[in-house]
């Protein structure tokens, strides 16, 4: 019986794969294959961009500018993530329902806060950025809030799931030792969830740096804004300088989070 349903599953998979391949081939026909498909000057530009990869502009003036811009991007990301973590812990705990006394209030708390978190992350940070720029102007706060809301939504949802997945035996033992809901949270759920929560947050922090870069295209300053200006001047050598700064930043954060994660596992 199990075998039959298993082979049926494989069958379904094959059919699905075939369908997807067919859809892909069909989509190729709808492309207008002609000389105008690729922008005529494109090849030359591409070559130029590639060539300047090896000649980033390294004048002290540009480096200085890049440093300041990188610092700004990083500060937006750090401030945004800090706010996001606070939101996520608060809403995540409520969305996990572990503080609720009765089954009914647990469902209510889970439903409401999972809904709020869903709304926060359903809207992309760029759209939040536009909304905040439109309402409070081109201030750093616009960038920080625009990051904090969707990232708070994502982190909060994951935190809630991590808290719900914690082993039940130690929690029951604490409960039978007379711990209240809030004591269960601090002596059971949070200590057991902490390492997963921190390691996911570190991963998200890396994403926040990239988001913060893209967001500065909206005009909020930072490394993305400098890249945009350089691109408008067709100054690809400068573009690469900024790109390298961005790459170094992301790599450094990755290294740091690896060290932190290793320490947590021990």
């Amino acid at each position, binding site marked *: 019986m199990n075998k039959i349903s298993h082979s049926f599953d494989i069958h379904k998979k094959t059919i699905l794969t075939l369908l997807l391949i067919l859809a892909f081939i069909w989509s190729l026909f709808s492309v207008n294959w002609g000389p105008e498909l690729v922008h005529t000057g494109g090849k030359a530009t591409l070559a130029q961009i590639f060539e300047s990869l090896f000649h980033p502009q390294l004048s002290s003036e540009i480096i200085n500018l890049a440093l300041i811009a990188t610092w700004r991007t990083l500060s937006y990301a750090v401030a945004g993530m800090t706010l996001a973590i606070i939101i996520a812990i608060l809403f995540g705990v409520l969305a996990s329902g572990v503080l609720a006394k009765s089954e009914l209030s647990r469902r209510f708390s889970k439903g409401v806060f999972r809904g709020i978190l869903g709304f926060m992350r359903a809207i992309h940070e760029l759209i939040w950025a536009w909304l905040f720029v439109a309402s409070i102007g081109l201030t750093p706060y616009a960038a920080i809030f625009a990051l904090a809301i969707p990232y708070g939504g994502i982190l909060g949802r994951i935190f809630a799931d991590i808290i719900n997945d914690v082993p039940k035996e*130690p929690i029951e033992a604490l409960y039978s*030792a007379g711990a*209240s809901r809030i004591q269960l949270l601090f*002596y*059971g759920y949070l200590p057991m969830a902490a390492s997963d929560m921190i390691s996911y947050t570190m991963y998200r922090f890396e994403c926040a740096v990239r988001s913060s870069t893209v967001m500065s295209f909206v005009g909020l300053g930072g490394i993305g804004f400098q890249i945009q200006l350089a691109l408008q001047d067709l100054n690809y050598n400068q573009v690469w300088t900024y790109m390298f700064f961005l790459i170094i930043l992301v790599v450094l954060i990755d290294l740091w989070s690896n060290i932190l994660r290793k320490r947590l596992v021990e």
Partner: protein
Amino acid sequence: MQQLNNIFELNNISKVYERKIAISSLSLTIKKGELVALIGPSGAGKTTLLNILANVLKSESGQLLISGVLSDKYNSGKKLAKKIGIIRQQFDLVGQLPVVHNVLAGRLVEWGFLKSLLSLIFPQEKELAKKALDRVGLLDKIYEKTSNLSGGEQQRVAMARLLVQKPEVILADEPVSALDPARAEDILSMLTKLVREENETLITVLHSVEYAKKYFDRIIAMREGKVYFDLPAEKVTDKLLSDLYDLKELN
């Protein structure tokens, strides 16, 4: 007055899962200060009975009195925790916390929110934890991460928590089944010794008849949801035991 001496009184307690009868019309009395071993084949209903005594499982019919008071009256976790302490296999501790916090968790029933939060940074009433850990021989591990301890050591930490919690009765469900024989005897002799010293009552589900006879005063054997025999430990004969674990179905 007789009633005050009874920590548990069960009258015709029954528990049914779907169609399976786990406990059928069981009546028992357990006196203060008794050390009771609960034995019987797998599926006899030992865990179910222990969970009913712990008031975490409600029986379908019958009546349970805890210290002469109807079990329904113990409706808050805190009230129950002062009466009943529970110890299971060694998976009951929060492995990520240092030993001291797992021991002091036995004080959460008395502590308010702020004190318990502060204690995670500056352990409160540390002397209490130290004394308890000293009695189970683990004083040197007080700041060790709990998950680094062996299974037997973790069970001793769980006992230290119970020493701090000071319940009137301790219910234990196969507390040594995950340990090697030497470790198991060590834990059982320590548990029974501490319970005697503290004048507490102990009810332990055990798979080993040998340990039951060696460390306990009274042995209650269960089979198919009923009490098969209930005797002082020294009166339990090999004949009774072989009948108890006989694979033939009862009628």
